[in-house]
């Protein structure tokens, strides 16, 4: 009898934490529907969602953030898998090289922003190297990567931090598959490239997909990097949402929360898409196992 309840006692702190998250999500949704009694708002309505979708600053912020999240997450996944493959191939899955690869994972986003300013700015190190090589004659000829509406600087900053994260995230799995099934395929005559694309990659897709999901949601809801490296207009969605949240006019609060609601809906939608895709994949590849 006592043992039967033990797991629930063990789970109490965890359930508390889940509770805090659900309360927060509930607050966002309720406030976005216009229910904030403290501000004298008590009528539930979808008007605020309608309102923000009619606002140009919101729609362009949404586009900016979607683009930013898709590019940074997919590029980080491709590059991360390549790095992990290189580590496996060269048998460097430990030691000094891995410590360096881990450095970006340990570096806070705000610091990465400073790195990028010093590296990619028009008077940054890359521009200086191009000048000394004679490729450009003046810093104004170096492409503007920072503070642009295209968020190139933000994407590159995420890439710097997240590609090593993906490499680390998939390394153990990839090396396990490549050592067993990948080797088997190569012994049977497949070229390393074929073995990678036909065996290792398909089997690693769930892990890579999970990394993509984590990174997409992180970049889509991230604040510091687009704040420090993105354009003033249009802003990234979380930056825009925070700006509305901080408006002195408290009646703007539901609209800010509706923006958060949109970020949340798209993040959870992405997670659902991931699970659906993994389900379909498991059905397809399931026969092999």
């Amino acid at each position: 009898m006592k043992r039967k309840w033990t797991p629930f006692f063990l789970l109490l702190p965890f359930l508390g934490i889940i509770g805090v998250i659900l309360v927060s999500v509930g607050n966002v949704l309720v406030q976005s529907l216009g229910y904030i009694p403290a501000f004298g708002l008590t009528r539930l309505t979808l008007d605020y969602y309608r309102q923000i979708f009619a606002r140009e600053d919101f729609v362009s912020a949404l586009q900016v953030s979607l683009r930013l999240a898709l590019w940074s997450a997919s590029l980080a996944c491709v590059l991360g898998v390549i790095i992990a493959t290189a580590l496996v191939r060269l048998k460097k899955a430990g030691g000094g090289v891995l410590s360096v690869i881990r450095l970006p994972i340990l570096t806070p986003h705000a610091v990465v922003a400073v790195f990028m300013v010093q590296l990619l700015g028009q008077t940054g190190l890359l521009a200086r190297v191009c000048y000394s090589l004679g490729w450009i004659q003046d810093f104004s000829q170096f492409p503007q990567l920072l503070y642009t509406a295209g968020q190139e600087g933000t994407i590159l900053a995420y890439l710097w931090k997240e590609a090593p994260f993906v490499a680390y995230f998939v390394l153990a799995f990839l090396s396990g598959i490549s050592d067993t099934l990948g080797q088997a395929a190569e012994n049977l005559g497949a070229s390393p490239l074929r073995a990678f694309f036909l065996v290792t990659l398909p089997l690693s897709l769930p892990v890579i997909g999970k990394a993509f999901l984590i990174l997409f949601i992180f970049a889509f809801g991230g604040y510091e990097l687009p704040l420090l490296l993105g354009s003033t207009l249009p802003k990234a969605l979380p930056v825009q949402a925070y700006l509305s949240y901080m408006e002195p006019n408290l009646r703007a609060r539901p609209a800010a929360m509706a923006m958060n609601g949109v970020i949340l809906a798209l993040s959870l939608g992405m997670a659902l898409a991931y699970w659906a895709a993994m389900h379909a994949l498991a059905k397809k590849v399931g026969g092999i196992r």
Partner: protein
Amino acid sequence: MKGNFLFKFLLALVLLLILVPAGQILLWSVAERWPWPGLLPESYSLRTVKELLFGSAKLPGLLGSSITLALTVGVLGTVVGLLTARATQLYDFPGKELVSFGAFLPLLVPGTVFAMGIQITLIRLGLSDTVAGVVLVHLIAAIPYCITILTDVTRAVGSSLEQQAMVLGASPLRAFLHGSLPSLMPGILSSVSMGFILSYSQYFTTLMAGGGRVKTLALVLVPYIQSGDRALASIYCVAFVGSALLVFFLFEGILHTVSERSRGK
């Protein structure tokens, strides 16, 4: 073989791209003048170091409080993670799959959305603008990683040693402390350091829950970056990353000693 050469080149490029910005920041932090288009600074000064140590920011205190806060988060996250891992790995109960979904939940709700949503509740609970509130909010960010790490080690270690000890008459606590804890130690240490790093890097959640009154290094750094004083922003970054790495490698060192000792036994 040709492929390996390509991989070597690529890996070298990646290492270069990781190390160059990190090295550059060291130069920037002590550069007095570094005009275009020089590849190296023209002159150096220790202005920033002085400002850092004796200036308005009071770095030593700030470092102390940031590290204490982050370690608290790391330890709490590890305790919650360990309890959760033991529940799912050593017991059977209905709805177990929901726990692993729940552990993933903080990664599905972006930190910005979470922080803006929870603020009103923190105010109601009197936790707004307090260290406790910040710890709670950071804990949410750390928990998925702590649970993942500790679930893996708990599964690997199992409970057989513990059960043997209990059969021989040890209390459950003693059985855990002497039976399982030593083998769990590597996982526990990496969970604490993961929680530490996650808390140490938080900016937005600290801003929202701490209301600017709970000061951490990340919070103080961002305005310096926005102000555009490159040298000062750089020295802050050096202090920030340096201290994080120091704590992190301290943990790695402890981990190494612990695993060496248990192997020696």
